[in-house]
């Protein structure tokens, strides 16, 4: 045995400030964009927006070339792909195993979760602004091909159809990513949720009138439809449906996902 020495003084930690949230969030934002996958995926979403809006500007009837139409389509493109960007940001901690480092540099995991939320929302906001700029370009192109666009923008379209719908998508991405903690699995899970589930519900609804009435209460995609169609203004009952189905498909998975991330052993 070694000679017993006097217990050394403890490490003095009083002079060390904890890692501020702003720094954690900016690091997470950097991590979303510093890999080829992250950078090119972000770039591809915007490129896809540009392509879709260009085609729309050339092909759509001249009466449907308002700024609102372009913005709505850009929002729909984002709606499909923004959640995947978030999924990659969260699941790489486990799939690429860099969580080992992330959570040793900040062992208070809940702070990393919050930082990822902030980074995810900031990234989504950035992409949304760029998509809105592309929508402006699309509208100008629409003018060149014979449209006489209405540049006016309804608040409901902007907030409900574009911002809220996409923010919900981002949170869905978070929930699925934290629950599955595996990049391919979470992407497949997300498409099952966003593409297959609504089709299945649609088929069931067409077969059963009772189910058609229940569907918007239990299926989040169906419930969200009023956000980005019609006058972009859900009725009171439709808001209630968004709330109820949102608890089932967003709040509960998000809570379970956060619980899993806080407890899981990063190996």
């Amino acid at each position: 045995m070694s000679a017993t020495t006097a217990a050394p003084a403890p490490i003095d930690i009083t002079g060390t400030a904890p890692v501020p949230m702003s720094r954690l969030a900016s690091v997470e934002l950097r991590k979303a964009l510093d890999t080829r996958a992250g950078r090119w995926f972000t770039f591809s979403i915007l490129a896809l927006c540009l392509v879709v809006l260009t085609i729309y500007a050339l092909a759509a009837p001249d009466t449907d070339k308002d700024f609102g139409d372009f913005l709505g389509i850009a929002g729909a493109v984002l709606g499909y792909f923004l959640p995947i960007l978030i999924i990659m940001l969260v699941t790489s901690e486990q799939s690429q195993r860099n969580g080992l480092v992330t959570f040793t540099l900040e062992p208070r995991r809940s702070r990393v979760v919050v930082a990822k939320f902030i980074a995810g929302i900031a990234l989504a906001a950035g992409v949304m602004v760029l998509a809105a700029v592309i929508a402006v370009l699309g509208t100008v192109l629409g003018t060149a091909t014979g449209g006489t666009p209405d540049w006016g923008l309804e608040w409901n379209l902007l907030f409900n159809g574009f911002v809220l719908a996409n923010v919900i998508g981002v949170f869905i991405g978070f929930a699925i990513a934290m629950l599955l903690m595996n990049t391919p699995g979470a992407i497949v899970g997300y498409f099952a949720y966003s593409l297959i589930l609504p089709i299945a519900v649609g088929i069931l609804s067409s077969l059963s009138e009772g189910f058609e009435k229940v569907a918007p209460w239990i299926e989040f995609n169906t419930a969200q439809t009023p956000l980005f169609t019609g006058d972009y203004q859900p009725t009171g009952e439709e808001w209630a449906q968004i709330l109820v189905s949102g608890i089932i498909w967003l709040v509960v998975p998000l809570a379970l996902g956060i619980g899993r991330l806080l407890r899981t052993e990063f190996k």
Partner: protein
Amino acid sequence: MITVESVTKTYGGFKAVDDVSFVAQPGRVTGFLGPNGAGKTTTMRIMVGLTVPTHGQVRIGGHLYRDIPNPGRHVGVLLDASAQHAGRTGREILTIAAKTMGLPLSRVDEMLDLVALSDAEAKRRLRNYSLGMKQRLGIAQALLGDPSVLILDEPANGLDPAGIRWMRTLLKGYADRGGTVLLSSHLLNEVELIADEMILIGHGRIVAQGDKKSLLAMDTNVSTLVMSLDNQRLAEALQQKGYTVAPEGEGLRVSCTTEEVGRVALEAQVVLTDLRSGAAGLEDLFLELTSDTQRDVIPQGAPA
């Protein structure tokens, strides 16, 4: 200082770590030795809060790891050099860590210099790194925040002989400046040369600990290996004194100290050509102590 206080971790019915307690002192390099799957990594993961122990706790410099603010500035950790996003460059990996810790980016260049990763290598993505390069990068990351405690899991893994020597010098100097170094290995000779103190673990339990001398003292069978110009006469002289003598190789194995063999040879006027302790080395001790946890049994009488 790292204080491990009766840490136990069970997975289902399997005890990965079983009531482990030890102290790694500042100013010393502590080697954490054991065969594959002995519980070294799990113990180290518990130290930094990645795994929650079933019982017990680990204090680093008197604190629980999760209570240390900006822990990268106090504790340097390398658990798995491959556990990084394969698509990031070496430089980017260090940059992320430096930004998290709030360090100037000049620190990244300093560390790349220290671990001898060239500018071109630092620009390569991790998936194109050899294991040795990953280890160097991992050591750079652990040292980035200028910590006073280092926890390194198998840091010599994949390093070439020159790299292993480089790492020995680096860690020795680090401990000499008052730092606490804990490094694990399954290779005894890797640790033997550098560790002031060794903790031997097998099957999740500590089987021995101490410095090299006190570990060797655990081997109670005194024996000496001797060669002389007249082995026959020496053997007879030794047997007359009541020692057991057995031929071994070109010489003899005798059941007494080297000093005693020397005296007998002097009296019998036999010229010795080789005289050394025949005690089991650390490696034999290590294998013996952890034998019930070894996966491979060395067959007896197998050709060398």
